[in-house]
């Protein structure tokens, strides 16, 4: 099948599976921007970036994922892979494609949507009366000017006031979580900046930042939303954030836990949901 510029694969990655609404809303936004979207992610589409200690396994995973996207380009005409996760994006650009023939282009979801901002803007009809602090990182700008792209999109939302937060090291909070002390500093500086600038909301860009910062939801009357949640809000779409609720004392319903497997829930999920917040001394 001939490759069409409007036919894309949305490669959302692995860890954003904690936040199903971010995947669904991103697909919806890409569709509203005019793309025919096929979504793919999870371990079967692993990029291999977290497997530096297993070079052969990482190589096999990355080769398999590139083959799948080549197949989608050949059989479905999907010539662009649109990423969500900056780790996947950088790994594709720097390591996967030099190590396997990729018959597709790559773009980040924020680039695709910012390029379609004129098409999306008329859909943003509901004023969002928030003053947000945009939580930013230094990394990934090597590949995509993501902070600028998100700001450009959010600037189309009526009523929204945007303050740029201090740019933190790393490409997202998960890269800091692995370094003792680093995440607490990043979270603390972000929160302090939100309070100092009279912001009522911290806006995350990536899923791992969201995962960490939602544990601070409501502290000093500051709330946590992802940029996708805010766009949905401006479109009048109610966007649930189940992870935020679970991380703050809630729990999935019994049917969902049964579907996921009670033992897996107790051993793999519950400990993450109940771990201490990234800011010492906070609830």
């Amino acid at each position, binding site marked *: 099948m001939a490759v069409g510029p409007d036919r894309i694969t949305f490669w959302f990655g692995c860890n954003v599976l904690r936040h199903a609404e971010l995947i669904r809303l991103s697909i919806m936004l890409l569709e509203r921007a005019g793309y025919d979207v096929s979504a793919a992610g999870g371990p079967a589409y692993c990029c291999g970036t977290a497997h530096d*200690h297993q070079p052969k396994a990482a190589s096999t995973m990355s080769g398999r994922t590139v083959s799948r996207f080549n197949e989608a380009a050949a059989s479905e005409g999907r010539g662009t892979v649109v990423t969500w996760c900056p780790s996947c994006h950088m790994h594709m650009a720097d390591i996967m494609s030099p190590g396997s023939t990729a018959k597709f282009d790559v773009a980040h979801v924020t680039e695709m949507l910012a390029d379609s901002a004129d098409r999306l803007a008329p859909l943003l009809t509901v004023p969002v009366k928030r003053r947000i602090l945009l939580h930013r990182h230094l990394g990934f700008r090597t590949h995509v000017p993501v902070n600028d792209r998100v700001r450009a999109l959010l600037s189309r939302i009526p009523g929204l006031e945007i303050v740029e937060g201090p740019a933190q090291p790393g490409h997202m909070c998960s890269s800091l979580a692995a370094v003792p002390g680093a995440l607490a500093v990043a979270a603390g500086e972000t929160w302090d900046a939100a309070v100092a600038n009279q912001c009522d909301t911290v806006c995350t860009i990536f899923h791992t930042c969201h995962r960490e910062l939602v544990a601070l939801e409501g502290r000093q009357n500051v709330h946590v939303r992802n940029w996708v949640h805010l766009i949905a809000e401006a479109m009048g779409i109610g966007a649930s954030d189940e992870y935020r609720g679970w991380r703050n004392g809630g729990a999935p319903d019994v049917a969902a836990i049964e579907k996921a497997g009670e033992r897996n829930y107790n051993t793999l999920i519950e400990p993450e949901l109940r771990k201490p917040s990234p800011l010492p001394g906070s609830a």
Partner: protein
Amino acid sequence: MKLPPARCETTEAYLAEAGPHLASLCTACGACFDACPMVRYSGLAGADAKAVAMGLRQLAVGETANPDTVAWVGVCAKSGLCRSACPEQSAGLDAMLLIRIARQRAINDTRQLKPKYDQMAFPRVKTFARLQLTDEELAEWL
């Protein structure tokens, strides 16, 4: 973005080739270390940047490096400031990739660094997926 053409048949082969190549371009000037915002977490504030950078070249070819270099590559969080700080960037040296390869070699070859890997990462994300996705989404997306 157009992706670069493949240079090897696997990422393993590419990284094996890229390490010595990038090391040969590196002059151990230390600009990448000086630009790095993670140095504060490595206990190396005030260290000799050139000496730390020299270890990058050693690790990238699979040779044991000084403990300071190992500590530094161990806290890399992919901030990327090293890339543009590197004076050899125009010659084809991607400092961020060199540091990534040095870290991989410190884990797998010289065994100076312990891997940080969550063995349960895949089972965990699969469980999160089953908590929230419909059967159709599970079948179509994963």
